[in-house]
């Protein structure tokens, strides 16, 4: 889901940025956050609630709520809504509260 035409703003074509989501190769655009790139690919479930494992998606979009926490390049609890997408990022769904070593 992306806004392509807007009455005031214009969106210039951006370079495609490859990344993997749970092992599957996808493409975002330069300037995307991780969450916006996933959303554009139709992926709306970003995490699970801790106790009942219910789906959690894009919510506060300002890095406060932990609803978009994922494992990025091995690092747990990354706030994907405010983290810029980079080429070849390894983005994974997080099980539980995240493992720290």
């Amino acid at each position, binding site marked *: 889901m992306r806004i392509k035409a807007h009455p005031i703003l214009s969106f210039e074509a951006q370079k495609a940025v490859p990344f993997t989501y749970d092992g599957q190769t996808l493409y975002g655009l330069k300037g995307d956050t991780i969450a916006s790139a996933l959303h554009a690919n139709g992926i709306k479930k970003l995490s699970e609630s801790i106790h009942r494992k219910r789906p959690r998606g894009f919510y506060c979009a300002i890095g406060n709520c932990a609803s978009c926490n994922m494992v990025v390049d091995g690092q747990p609890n990354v706030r994907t809504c405010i983290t810029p997408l980079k080429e070849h990022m390894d983005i994974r769904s997080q099980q539980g509260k995240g493992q*720290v*070593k």
Partner: protein
Amino acid sequence: MKTNKPFPDKANYVIIGGGISGVSVAWHLAKKGAKDIVVLESEYLSYGATGRCGAGIRQQWSTKANVLLAKKSIEFFENAQDLLDYDDDIEFKQEGYLIVGTDEEEDRAFKENVKLQQSLGVPAEFLTPKEAKEIVPHLNLDGVTSATYCKTDGHLNPFKMTDAFYKAAKKLGVSFFTHTKVNDITVKNGKIESVQTTKGTIEADVVINAAGGFAQDIGEMAGVEIPVKSQNREILVTEPIEKIQGPMVISFSRNIYCQQTPHGAFIMGRGDDRDFSQSMHSTHQFLEAMAKTATRLLPPIGQLRVIRQWAGLYNFSPDSQPIISGSQDVEGFYMACGFSGHGFMLAPMTGQIISEMVLGEPSSVDTESLSLARFEKGAAKTMEQNVV
């Protein structure tokens, strides 16, 4: 916290303070059959030091009185769920306290402490740094010279524990009035006569001062000078992660206590030399100092984000041991204060001792070292050393 009861104009026992000490005293009194007990709280239950504390439960103290109070309190906590018939979980987790030493002086003191604790039946042990690392594998041993560990120490949820005492006391008929501030206490002919509050005046013969960081103010209202001073102490909590740390890790020389709660978040705090005050404000200086201390001793914590920080009051007595006592000057005035940062973990015994004093029962512990009078006799003899 709504109560349908109208504000009373008379009571047998008025407890000032709706923290852990106040609710424990209320429950212990009611359990022994005392009637007409009123608890007054200026804000809401556990607003003060109880709800702001580090939630640790430990028996590794340097004085006999504190070790015994803590040991007997843990015996209560182990059975609290049943004793109070609580329908929720008090989250009592006994995974120990690891106390880390960093110089020879501490090593010597630790050996003395462990000897005392063991003699009183507390399963504390003296450890080498290597043994300490087996218990907390992510401990950074740089500069660590020794440790002590007691496996039956642990963590307890202050809000749930307060709630458990509150609900059980309420069932036994205790009345609670929150958002009710005590303005003055009237003493006549050396006896407690009444308590003036923002909701009205209550006549009572017995007042129990469990006002935490404000206990000295309540004492002043009754004309009883209590030699306690309050100090602002700060604390923070991180985001939760999967469990990596069982015990509370503390160090007196490094000035830190740090534990992972059952919820997965780390709670940590430290003290510094501050003027005595009743300020409960947080500072950015604490955040920086705490982060440096914690990441040096427990490096993986550096990967976590801080969610929130807050502050509360330690109520210090001159010897850092509690004052659980009556008053020689004012009949009917009792106090449970001056806990010096560990009133939460001693609360079951606080309730038991105060209820025994108030009801004229023989005391289950030696109360001499807890008395207000010990300071009048020219400075208390033993100082509690193990305070962060």
